[in-house]
């Protein structure tokens, strides 16, 4: 087996507030006048990732789970070269396709067909490839009737179906997917999952972030739980999910005995399925959730 992804001592720091405070020259000049030789006020920083290292073998399907703000998306953004690490190194072998948002780069005024070409090209397909796969993409999306309608008339579900249809035909060596199952109906989710199953069969490496634990367990052999910018646990998917859910159980029982918090983030949280809360979906019996396909 060859290594498909190598991550070494990866850290990413964001400066909080810095973006809003001094993005105007005027503010910078004003600061310069006030304290011409003084040091800048220390900025509040956030380490989205701290010293993360791991390797992924070719053909592995890795599910990444963790609460909102744990650093999952930052990790995916660095792997897909969208943003750069503050320190550490990342290497990925072959063509990397990142699906961080379904239909990113779609233009409202263009038709479905035109957007397939635009999006496919930006995601790394050659025009010839898109030409060859156009029919398959349209069929996968189920948008045959509306393919020559500007997508500003599409519903959000239609849009994401078209976006995933393009992504499913990218044939990358490494596919990075961030929470695509949050959109689309059950039928389409099923289609997405089976498309990812096919990718796995083709020996492709997949990194999959989702709060849908049932889908993650179903698809992934290996799991990674990220908490506060660090890899908390890396191992067989089932074990990682159990440990992750275990952390919720202990947090819940702990908070039952502590005084109720007023910020609404305490035990009053509900885990309604489909909501984008940081509670995992299907928390009771992940293996029976409707998204499962066999």
């Amino acid at each position, binding site marked *: 087996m060859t290594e498909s992804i190598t991550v070494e001592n990866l850290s990413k720091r964001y400066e909080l507030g810095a*973006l809003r405070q001094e993005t105007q020259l005027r503010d910078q000049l004003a600061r310069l006048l006030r304290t011409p030789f003084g040091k800048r006020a220390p900025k509040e920083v956030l380490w989205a990732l701290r010293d993360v290292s791991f390797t992924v073998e070719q053909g592995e399907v890795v599910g990444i789970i963790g609460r909102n703000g744990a650093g999952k998306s930052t990790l995916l953004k660095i792997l897909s070269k969208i*943003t*750069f690490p503050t320190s550490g190194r990342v290497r990925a072998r072959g063509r990397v396709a*990142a699906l961080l948002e379904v239909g*990113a*780069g779609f233009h409202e*005024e*263009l038709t479905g067909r*035109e957007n397939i070409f*635009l999006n496919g090209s930006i995601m790394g397909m050659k025009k010839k490839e898109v030409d060859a796969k156009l029919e398959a993409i349209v069929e996968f999306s189920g948008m045959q009737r509306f393919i020559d309608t500007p997508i500003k008339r599409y519903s959000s579900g239609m849009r994401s179906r078209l976006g995933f249809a393009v992504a499913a035909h990218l044939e990358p060596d490494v596919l990075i997917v961030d929470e695509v199952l949050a959109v689309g109906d059950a039928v389409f989710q099923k289609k997405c999952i089976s498309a990812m199953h096919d990718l796995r069969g083709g020996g492709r490496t997949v990194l999959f972030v989702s709060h849908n634990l049932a889908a993650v367990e179903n698809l992934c052999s290996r799991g990674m739980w990220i908490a506060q910018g660090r890899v908390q646990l890396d191992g067989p998917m089932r074990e990682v999910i159990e440990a992750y859910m275990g952390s919720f159980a202990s947090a819940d029982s702990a908070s039952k005995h502590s005084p109720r918090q007023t910020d609404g983030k305490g035990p009053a949280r509900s885990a309604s399925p489909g909501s984008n809360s940081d509670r995992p979906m299907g928390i009771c019996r992940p293996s029976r959730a409707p998204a499962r396909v066999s």
Partner: protein
Amino acid sequence: MGQWVSEIWHSREILYFLAWRDVKVRYKQAALGVAWAVLQPLFTMITFAFFFGKLAGIPSDGVPYPLFSYSALVLWTYFSVTLSQVGNSLVANSSLITKIYFPRVLLPAAAAFGGLLDLVVSSVFLIGMLLYYHVTPRWTMLLTPIFVGQTVLLVMGVGMLLAALNVRYRDVKYTIPFLTQIGLFVTPIIYPVTFLPHRFQGWLALNPMTGVIQGFRACLFGGHVDWDVLGSSWIVTLSLLLIGTLHFRSTERVFADIV
């Protein structure tokens, strides 16, 4: 740098599709469509011909004033309209920058190339005017694309610099219209260079568009060519292109974090 260039070369189809998108979208739901490419310089020319040519009696180097001003406006309209689009290209496509990786320079480049369609359309009208005014055809007319090319390089140079700055400082958005408005007066569009007192003419040559417009007109109408002005125009253009490229390269890593 070599790696950067080869990556851009491999992504040339993205450049094509982004430019194609800009062109397709530009005149969607506009009843007059691509006619706007002619209407903008045309009405500017009519206004100039009336106020500056007729009322103020500004000379035009022996060329009919409407032709004199329109020929410059073809290039100037491309320059000013496209510069604003190139300068805003990163901010306007922030959803792409934060979601997909591709060479970032393709966004300003696509805006610069997409604007060429308008230039072609307004040039066709210029050819009509040349025929109407019975301008003698000359072989130097074949050299005009050189100056179109120089304008593209200039738009890219200044545009990349502004686009990269715009990611951090949105002041740039307000600076661009202001810059192009002043540029209209410090470029020999309304008047010939010789209209200015001699001591100002040297300053005008620092504006790279002066050489572009002078060279373009000389190719169309013949007459005296000031090689010093053309030379300094190219030096300024290439320097700006270098500065723009270097600044863009040194900041593009953080675009996704701060845009």
